[in-house]
């Protein structure tokens, strides 16, 4: 055997110079190691503080600058004539609501069906392939989806709110489908087996038992997707940004006003009065998005609490 520099061979547990009975305070290099550890821990705290500070500053700016703008008139009135004061974003609010609602109406059923296919019917390979496709869709820059919708629906015709809804639905689809998949995966297998054992068809067990028990997770996913879509600007800039002051919404025939594009246009024009309106619109959008995200989270927490019981 080789001679050991270490002292395991020694009769005692610790090397002789390390008396086990000495007080339990840092010994050896431990003090220095603690300094290193504290240093890096502080960096982590600092990083977190930075992110929270950014969040607070952004929100505070939006609230403080937008808060003074918001009024009933602002929320309901049409935009002012060029160069005039006053006016609001009523039509943009309605427009965003409409565009996002239609997008949800397209994406939600499709997303749920995809999730049902992958979780109930697909072979493992098909499942992972579709999952990959969804991830890739999700990873596409939204402006690419915008020019896709342009090429498909707008080129050679004219901008339309429907093209906007279509583009947003592509953004929402993977979000809803993945959330639904995860929610369906939470459904206990016992439930599936029990439903199958009843001798009813697959359709009845899927639609009658499995889907309902995954519904709150699916709703959460949909709500979070709505929050995401409501603020998407790039696709709408490309397919629903050239609109006039007319009040009638021609959903398939023309672009309609919407909040994100409104904010973008105002922010690009060097007009201080326009900035004011942009802050107001930003506040409206932020309130909507944060409220929906919080709602989604609460739903999620509730469904998780229910599942764990």
């Amino acid at each position, binding site marked *: 055997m080789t001679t050991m520099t270490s*002292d395991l061979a020694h009769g005692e547990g610790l090397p002789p110079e390390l008396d086990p009975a000495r007080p339990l305070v840092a010994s050896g290099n431990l003090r220095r190691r603690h300094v290193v550890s504290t240093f890096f821990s502080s960096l982590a705290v600092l990083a977190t503080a930075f992110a929270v500070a950014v969040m607070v500053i952004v929100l505070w700016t939006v609230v403080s600058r937008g808060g003074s703008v918001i009024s009933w008139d602002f929320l309901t009135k049409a935009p002012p004539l060029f160069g005039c004061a006053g006016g609001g974003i009523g039509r943009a609010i309605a427009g965003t609501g409409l565009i996002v609602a239609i997008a949800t109406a397209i994406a939600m059923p499709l997303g749920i069906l995809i999730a049902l296919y992958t979780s109930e019917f697909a072979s493992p390979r098909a499942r992972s392939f579709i999952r990959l496709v969804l991830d890739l869709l999700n990873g596409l820059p939204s402006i690419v989806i915008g020019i896709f919708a342009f090429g498909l629906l707008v080129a050679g015709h004219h901008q339309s709110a429907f093209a906007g809804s279509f583009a947003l639905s592509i953004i929402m689809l993977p979000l809803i489908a993945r959330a639904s998949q995860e929610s369906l995966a939470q459904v206990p297998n016992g439930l599936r087996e029990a439903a199958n054992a009843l001798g009813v068809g697959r359709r009845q067990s899927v639609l009658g038992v499995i889907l309902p028990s995954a519904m709150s997770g699916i709703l959460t996913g949909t709500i979070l997707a709505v929050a995401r879509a409501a603020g998407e600007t790039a696709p709408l800039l490309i397919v629903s940004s050239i609109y006039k002051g007319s009040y009638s919404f021609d959903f398939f025939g023309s672009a309609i006003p919407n909040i994100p594009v409104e904010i973008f246009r105002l922010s690009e024009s060097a007009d201080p009065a326009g900035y004011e309106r942009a802050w107001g619109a930003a506040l409206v959008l932020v309130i909507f998005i944060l409220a929906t995200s919080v709602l989604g989270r609460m739903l999620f927490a509730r469904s998780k609490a229910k599942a764990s019981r």
Partner: protein
Amino acid sequence: MTILDPEFDPIMEPSRPAAPARSAGERYRIQTVDRPARTASHGQPTPTTPVVRESVFKVEQLAISYGSKTAVQGVTMGIDRNRITAIIGPSGCGKTTFLRSLNRMHDGIPGLRVDGHIYYHGHDLYGSGVDRVEVRRRIGMVFQKPNPFPKSIYDNVAWAPRNLGLRSGLDDRVEKALRGAALWDEVKDRLKDSALGLSGGQQQRLCIARAIAIEPDVLLLDEPASALDPIATASIEELVRTLKAKFTIVIVTHNMQQAARLADRTAFFGLDNERIGTLIEYDETDKIFTNPADTRTEDYVTGRFV
């Protein structure tokens, strides 16, 4: 017959230089008479004179609770130096909970409360100013489920010594630790391979090697063989027996034969009337298994307990 006398003030010099003043009270005297079976099987000379043992831990009225649920309470016991102390008892009686309190492994678990006192070589383990990294450096632990790091076999063992700055002779240290854990021959040709490729028994011995590589004072073993087959179990038991010379060992086990084979002293934990874990009997192993004082102990060791 064994007599445990905590009040006893030793006149004889203990084997080690006296620890600071507080440790004086933690010595107690054991008179061992009547241990023919063990002395025969393990070849230990029967002490004819009273033996003074130095205690490493002195636990006083320990109670541990998870939030509002008390897991163990009323535990008072001492743990001897360089001996093997076994902890047995039914599932859920707080053996793991107790063991983890001995190296402050509970720290950081939200809602956990430790009441009472644990003295380690006379120092209050939960006193102010105690450095828990230092505590764990001196009191190592091997868990029920083997938990090798996803690193090479070598790095698993070398990791902690490197942290401690024990860099010179690292190869020798790793070899020594692996030999100590009776694993060297099996892995010496593949030290650079991932530790996750080892079998369960090898992984557990690697975890022991990892723990002894930094030469702690005490080794806490929580059912180290519970997930292993009989052969791996036997090699772990053999290993524990050899480690006794160097370390103080506390081992939790579900397996009563294992406790009887290995341990010098055995503590039996059970559930009290409120279904809270507590120490029911603590004595020399022979006594616990052949002539326990408490009927609950007797029921348990004879298998009547469910």
